[in-house]
């Protein structure tokens, strides 16, 4: 029997597995498939648009106390939130994929959101960004040259530059031939990132970029600068071009998120933690004492039982697959059928506008937990004595609207693991 079974291989599950493994717990991560991080811009977004805010908040960590009491951040002391983010930044540095807050901010507490260009040319507020995105900081004065590749889908430099221009940022666009990156007729961002692991291809690209870039300009590229060799690829390209280079995350598959996933997965393997995809939880059993005894995953025949002392539900929200629904409007949590705060009538899920400034009620629902991150009944009693939850599955936030998705993942993943490590289930 292992100590901890984590269900879900998104950011919250991986961070929890990391924290637990560092505390010497035996841990396994299972997941239906790969997800979340593969779609993600690869930044840590703590908070940009709290409920009722008029615009972007500058210092997210100043705003936490003003969040509604049911918000996942409010389950924690602010010092713990700061510590979790600092631990994440330190871990990524250790993994060779360093994440930092806004330039010059040593103290996370007073650190401000950075505005980075989105693939549509909007300003995207983030709290921690990987090194490859920092030169895109819209607070910097240098004009931007946005470079795309003819035939690469979903990345249109003219659109980005024009929209940035409308927001008052100096940007112009250029196209380079696809053949510079690949002999393939078609290749997605992951294939291209892999192609740029090759120094010879980077040299060809650097020659063209150097020709295009005007004096004092910084160069924005789709996020394809290397996959396995990313840090070296970025440094190498910047040095050859002689200008600051920044990546703009693309539509999925998103290479910056995939890099983070791969780095965490590799590190977990070194810590003895296996991340097993293709294992969908389809059943569980609990004993009379309110403890989960095992979780079953589907196989080619009999379900496979996973027995652990503690279980962490980190299956994500509606997008991640933590909930399912049917045409009648019924919504349920997919593994343990936990009580949900999601409105059980379809008519209450959405507001009349798709992009309503207050977000959508259905996104705010989820699994309610206590301050120990244990799912609870409406009465407040824990549903199972050895079950915890973290990440997108939690109730109380609208992470898309707030831009708090990955921040909640990091912070609650670490917090839940901390609770598990010190719980009676383990000791």
């Amino acid at each position, binding site marked *: 029997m292992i100590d901890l079974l984590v269900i879900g291989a998104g950011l919250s599950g991986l961070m929890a597995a990391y924290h637990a493994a560092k505390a010497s717990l035996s841990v396994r991560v299972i997941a239906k*498939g790969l*997800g979340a991080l593969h779609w993600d811009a690869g930044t840590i977004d703590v908070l940009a648009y709290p409920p009722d805010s008029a615009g972007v908040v500058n210092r997210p960590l100043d705003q936490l106390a003003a969040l509604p009491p049911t918000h996942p951040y409010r389950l924690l002391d602010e010092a713990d939130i700061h510590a979790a983010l600092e631990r994440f930044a330190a871990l990524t540095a250790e993994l060779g994929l360093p994440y930092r807050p806004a330039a010059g901010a040593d103290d996370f507490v007073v650190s401000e959101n950075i505005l980075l260009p989105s693939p549509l040319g909007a300003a995207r507020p983030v709290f921690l960004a990987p090194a490859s995105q920092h030169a895109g900081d819209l607070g910097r004065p240098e004009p931007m040259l946005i470079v795309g590749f003819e035939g690469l889908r979903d990345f249109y430099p003219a659109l980005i530059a024009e929209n940035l221009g409308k927001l008052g940022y100096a940007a112009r666009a250029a196209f380079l031939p696809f053949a510079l990156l690949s002999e393939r007729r*078609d290749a997605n961002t992951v294939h291209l990132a892999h192609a740029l692991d090759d120094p010879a291809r980077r040299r060809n690209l650097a020659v063209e970029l150097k020709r295009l870039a005007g004096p004092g300009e910084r160069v924005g590229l789709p996020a394809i600068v290397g996959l396995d060799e990313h840090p070296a690829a970025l440094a190498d390209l910047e040095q050859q071009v002689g200008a600051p280079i920044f990546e703009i995350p693309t539509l999925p*598959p998103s290479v910056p998120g995939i890099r983070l996933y791969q780095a965490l997965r590799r590190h977990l393997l070194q810590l003895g933690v296996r991340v*097993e995809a*293709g294992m969908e939880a389809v059943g569980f059993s609990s004993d009379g004492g309110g403890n989960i005894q095992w979780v079953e995953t589907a*196989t*080619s*025949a009999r379900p*496979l039982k996973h027995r652990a002392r503690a279980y962490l539900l980190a299956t994500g929200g509606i997008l991640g697959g933590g909930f399912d629904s049917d045409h009648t409007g019924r919504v349920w949590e997919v593994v343990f059928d936990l009580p949900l705060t999601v409105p059980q009538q379809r008519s209450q899920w959405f507001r009349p506008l798709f992009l309503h400034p207050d977000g959508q009620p259905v996104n705010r629902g989820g699994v309610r937990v206590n301050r120990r991150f244990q799912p609870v009944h409406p009465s407040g009693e824990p549903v199972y004595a050895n079950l915890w939850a973290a990440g997108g599955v939690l109730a109380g936030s609208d992470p898309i609207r707030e831009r708090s998705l990955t921040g909640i993942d990091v912070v609650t993943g670490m917090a839940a693991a901390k609770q598990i490590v010190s719980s009676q289930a383990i000791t």
Partner: protein
Amino acid sequence: MFTESWLSVGPTLDECIKCNICTSYCPVAAVTDLFPGPKYAGPQAQRFRENGQPHSPDHSVDYCSGCRVCNEVCPSGVKIAELNARARAQIAADQGIPLRNRVLGRNELLGKVGSIAPSLANFSLHNPVSRVVAEKVMGIAREAPLPRWSTDGTFVDWWNSREDQRLQSDKKVVYFHGCATMYYEPFIGRAAVAVFEHNGYEVIVPPQNCCGLPMLSNGEFKAAEKLYDNNLRKLGPYAGDGFDIVGTSTSCTLTLKEEAPELLDRHGEDALALKMAVWDIFEWLRELHEAGELRTDFERIDMVLPYHAPCQYRAHRVGKPAMEILSLIPGIDLRESEARCCGIAGTYGYKVEKYQISMEVGEELFSFVREQGDEVEITACDSETCRWQLEHGTDLPSRHPIEILAAAYGLYDLESRTLIAR
């Protein structure tokens, strides 16, 4: 080509959110333009195949190797590999099946015919002239790692020869050897029997047929039905009586459990009983170990052992049980391959138009083995065609983990692949 099981597979395409994770991890799309990726050939093209469309809109699906990486990584549960397998069957129904694919699908017949005079058969098939002819006439790549017929009898020849030496026990297990062990690698079966008996199990080897996978993957569903139904008749009674049916070929066990019943619409009680009775051998040994019943009287084996779990384990969705059991053996420095696929994918890499793709896909695995250093003398993998591909790509001998386990019990010589008399 509408079948009942569309009902379980077809609707999963509506779960596709076009996130492209499958295409990002697909080992074939990574090396060739001929396969645009699982998302395109699977759920997207599928929309044009439904509702009685007479022709498949997308023949690139023929370049899907069936490795199932897509199924594993899909966050939405789309049965992409199954969609593709059915689409290949539809192409076969539209266009007929080339002679080459009919031959490659007939593993059992080839085994039987070659075993009549194995030395002659080996010479006839494996000399350079006949390989060139086979390539020109049949389209079987001349470099592809085809197996050699066993020259010291089939597995069942050996099994029958030791009737009086078999262990009798209250604990019994049914062994499914499959065609490769029967005709090409009888030593795999010998090692398996040695391990079963060492753990106190009496082995039963009932008459059995090819599982049908080579035909299923070449789109010959009708012929595969006959084989599956024969197996159901021959093995069904054992399943009904509660025996475990354990196989050493991960692809055969997968076919009996899931592939055949799902693709051929066999959902009766007997098919379900057979599915639930079948185990892959290391899946079964892991269960034995977890019950505290696996003997661990291992001799030390000092070696660096690169291990590659075959794609079929991905489809079994039982993790990597051979890793777990081999790691119990003192002295073995196990190195786990994370390569997505060896490239061979059953008979895929034998085909002249796909040989180069299969070698480029396999490069991920071959280079992993090279990186483990010069001290590596053998590699390990559970699946026969993958082992042959591994040997072809690395020039190192490859062994089934059951051979390693039998050797650790002191029952088997890894170099000569023979049992050690005790």
